[in-house]
């Protein structure tokens, strides 16, 4: 009886003049795990970008609580943050990875529907997959003045705008259902831009 392990099989196949791909149908089991599909790669990037955006809002919410933005700021930030939490949950639910595969961003901040502000949470390394999205909304927050508040609003608006644009780029080449999810999230981001603009310039 011949027992071939993953180590010995290539030697046996080589001795018989065969490659492992001659012996099996489908992906060569000896060349390692197949690379993730296009939709998975795109989805992982979207998840990382959403995580970075959430981190930005968490920081902004902490800044807003310190009184550096107008009265409606904290409530609006928390509302928009909760919706980004919903986006993240939906994106993660769409990501189906084979068992044993590493997750998209192991160090990422967690967020789920109903996410609340947690000032201590920071952006995960490498999570800034969307241009303009960085966890620095509170960088000017130390002064607690109106200028700092406007800086936070401007950063959030820029990040939302960048996120919407990234969503549009992603949807062109993926499965239709995933494209619709990206389009819906991008549209939500666009409404956030308008809501933040209204906060910056009340009627």
């Amino acid at each position, binding site marked *: 009886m011949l027992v071939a392990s993953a180590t010995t099989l290539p030697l046996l196949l080589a001795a018989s003049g065969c490659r492992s791909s001659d012996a099996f149908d489908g992906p060569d089991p000896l060349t390692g795990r197949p690379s993730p599909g296009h939709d998975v790669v795109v989805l992982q990037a979207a998840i990382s970008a959403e995580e970075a955006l959430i981190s930005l809002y968490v920081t902004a919410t902490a800044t807003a609580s310190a009184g550096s933005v107008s009265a409606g700021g904290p409530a609006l930030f928390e509302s928009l943050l*909760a*919706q980004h939490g919903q986006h993240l949950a939906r994106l993660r639910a769409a990501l189906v990875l084979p068992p044993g595969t590493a997750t998209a961003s192991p160090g990422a901040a967690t967020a789920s529907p109903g996410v609340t502000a947690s000032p201590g949470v920071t952006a995960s390394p490498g999570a800034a997959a969307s241009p303009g999205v960085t966890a620095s909304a509170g960088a000017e927050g130390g002064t607690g003045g109106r200028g700092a508040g406007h800086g936070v609003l401007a950063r959030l608006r820029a990040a939302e705008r960048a996120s919407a644009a990234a969503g*549009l780029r992603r949807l*062109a080449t993926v499965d*239709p259902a995933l494209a*619709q999810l990206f389009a819906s*999230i991008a*549209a939500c981001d666009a409404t*956030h831009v*308008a809501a933040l603009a209204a906060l910056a310039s009340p009627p």
Partner: protein
Amino acid sequence: MTAVSALQAALAAENAAIYGYGVAGAYLAGSRQAAAIQDWTDHSEARDTLSAMITRLGATPVAAAAFYALPFAVHDSRTARALAAYLEDGVTRAYLGVVAVDDQRLRTFGALAMQAPARRAAYWRGSTQAFPGLTSSDR
């Protein structure tokens, strides 16, 4: 869904919105009425854009109906704003259908086109939604 049928559905939603704003606008005043007039104009322009696209694809654009049944009675400013939000939700949903077609340019067109009605819906509703255009069964 084919490209033509998706565009026709968006056109039908735009036609319904144009009709509906005619009703809602009568119960609004001041800045809200001005917003409704602007939205009516935007929907009319979108209707023309969609009609031209459908014609270029060799199909005949669907005609507007003479009358549309309203989803609820409109009799004051509150219900007029609710109708406007309802109409914008319908247009947003229709453009999301365009995003599902194979043609990449049309997908991007649909995704961009749905942002304006999503913004308008948020304005009339007074709050944003996490997933504009997606129905609860899609989520």
